[in-house]
């Protein structure tokens, strides 16, 4: 088999939907019916998952590190809040898209700064942009509400029919729908030739340029797309909580996102989703047990995760399912997480 057709063969196999993936989404949807009293935390997880997916697009596929992803989240959040507060666009779905576009514009504008440097520079630039926006939001408190946040946002029903309820049911299914649609789009993008070229850039930008990939243009494109995703996540945040405060730009938000991807792994889209679930559940568990010192335990768990290595953890987690698979489908079907990906 020639090298070219070999690559094509593998790329195609990756792009195909697996039963596991379908099951994943079925379970996500099932959660909505299984735990009717936990909508809020689940909505929170969905938002975080979408946000993490956005970072995964640039970190996992294009190799751009960012400590300031909250900048786009925040722009999306404030855009959605202001649109609704001043009655400019009251229909949530349209407002969501508009907010995403606002973040996208910022993403496009700042992408030129980001592609200039390498890792450390990028960390600083992205961090700086987020801090800058946070300071601006604080300074122009007549628009943003400053530290008090945007108060009094009232969400109109989705498509004029589905009203947001206090228990967060509408919010949850709305968020899941948005996450799923954007996931489909992301999946399509990363398995396209464009996505493959990003991987080439991530592995070796010089060589990628040598084989004719327009490196900078590709990076600008994916960075802009990721900004759109983050903006949507931010807008979802405002729409489902009816509040936007300075905290949306905070450094912690960007840093948490890194942690989510550290837990979940990068470069296969599900990393952000799984990481978000694990991270939030840990947080919820610890802060229920000890409201004062939960951060200590979170920190400890993260250190342990990093020291043990995700691969080993995955092997342990998969041990029992693999035993069952072996019985049912024979040795070959056993699942292992490839080291290169995780």
């Amino acid at each position, binding site marked *: 088999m020639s090298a070219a057709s070999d690559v094509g063969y593998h790329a195609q196999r990756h792009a195909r939907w697996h039963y596991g993936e379908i099951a994943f989404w079925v379970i996500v949807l099932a959660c909505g019916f299984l735990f009717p009293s936990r909508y809020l935390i689940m909505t929170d997880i969905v938002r975080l998952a979408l946000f993490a997916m956005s970072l995964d697009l640039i970190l996992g596929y294009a190799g751009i590190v960012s400590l300031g992803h909250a900048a786009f989240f925040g722009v999306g959040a404030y855009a959605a809040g202001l649109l609704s507060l001043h009655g400019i666009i009251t229909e949530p779905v349209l407002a969501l898209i508009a907010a995403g576009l606002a973040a996208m514009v910022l993403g496009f504008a700042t992408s030129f700064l980001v592609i200039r440097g390498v890792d450390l520079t990028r960390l600083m630039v992205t961090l700086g942009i987020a801090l800058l926006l946070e300071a601006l939001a604080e300074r122009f408190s007549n628009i943003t509400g400053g530290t008090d946040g945007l108060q009094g946002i009232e969400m109109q029903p989705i498509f004029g029919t589905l009203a947001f309820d206090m228990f967060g049911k509408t919010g949850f299914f709305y968020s899941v729908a948005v996450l799923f649609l954007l996931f489909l789009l992301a999946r399509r993008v990363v398995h396209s030739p464009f996505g493959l070229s990003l991987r080439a850039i991530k592995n070796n930008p010089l060589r990628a340029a040598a084989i004719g990939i327009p490196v900078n243009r590709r990076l600008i494109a994916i960075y802009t797309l990721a900004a759109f995703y983050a903006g949507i996540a931010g807008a979802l945040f405002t729409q489902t909580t009816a509040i936007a405060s300075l905290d949306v730009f905070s450094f912690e938000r960007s840093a948490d996102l890194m942690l989510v991807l550290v837990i979940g792994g990068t470069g296969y889209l599900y990393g952000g989703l799984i990481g978000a679930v694990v991270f939030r559940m840990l947080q919820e568990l610890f802060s229920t047990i000890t409201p004062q010192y939960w951060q200590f335990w979170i920190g400890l768990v993260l250190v342990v995760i990093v020291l043990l290595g995700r691969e080993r953890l995955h092997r342990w987690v998969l041990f029992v399912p693999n035993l069952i698979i072996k019985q049912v489908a024979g040795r070959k079907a056993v699942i292992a997480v490839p080291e290169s*990906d995780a």
Partner: protein
Amino acid sequence: MSVRHKMLSWAATAAAVASLAAVAPAGAQDAVKIGLILPMTGGQASTGKQIENAIKLYMQQKGDTVAGKKIEVIVKDDGAVPDKTKTAAQELIVNDKVNFIAGFGVTPAALAAAPLATQAKIPEVVMAAGTSIITERSPYIVRTSFTLAQSANIIGDWAAKNGIKKVATLTSDYAPGNDALNFFKERFTAGGGEIVEEVKVPLQNPDFAPFLQRMKDAKPDALYVFVPAGQGGNFMKQYAERGLDKAGIKVIGPGDVTDDDLLNNMGDAVLGTVTAHLYSAAHPSAMNKDFVAAYKKAFGSRPGFMAVSGYDGIHLIYEALKKTNGDTNGDKLIEAMKGMKWESPRGPISIDPETRDIVQNIYIRKVEKVDGELYNVEFATFEAVKDSGKTKK
């Protein structure tokens, strides 16, 4: 290599489902539940800690059963971030089925929870946040802390009458800070005073030094300061470092800046600071002496005004339950709370039946050394002060 992550997704989802179920709360019992939402981490953590301590102390002293019902307190940390407050409040109301939500370290947090209290028809007892508008945001909000208008008005009058002509102001840039500034300015200028310099500092991680230099150059008679409790120590340190105390510029303000919690460690630069406030650990009443002694014994530190607000907040909940005979209907509880009067460690207080806000004595105090420790010593009392932020309308 070809089939990836399938099992990982399975396993992770299964784990998530399991942990969701594990974290899900146990079924409701015949207990009265209080959801206490406080900043236990972050910059406002000292507020949360004091209120939680005071509530623990009260429940130790008075027992945890009222009108035949067991009182159960569930503490949630919101880090003073409003959206976390909102999520916490929703979780408490929907899942834990709490009968009260209480706490709220900062105004945005209290405001974020207000619509939920209205929707769920349960009392929201505000134990810290001090902006006037809070109680107007929901008919279910009752406050046991204070409003900035109460102390800012009085210190404004006092300053104008006591030979202070020129004042520079330094206030935190958020709703309570703006209240503190505006109410002071109104009274002080009406009394013939002049504001020579007006500075607003950011709420998060403020660096006062550059502002203080400007203050010093403006040569005012006094510096009017409002920073939330917890930042006072930092402010006083920088105030002394910049030599404003030696330049003869005294600090005046609402009492948040000389919160008892931190006061004793602020150093001698703070001596002579005059503030108007609702509570001093040095308040000369038998009840307060017992309260301070019990608090010190239990937690090894001095109670501040946040602790007293928490102590009174839980007292209000207890008394309301006694009045309704354990009925947890939100409307009945609010009715029971309205107009309630009692003796608190800070002095006599009551709940205004019209605004559900607190009516209390405001004391003018000066920082002095008592037995080698720094205290706010009260020297004038204004009795039964209502929140003028609302009565004006």
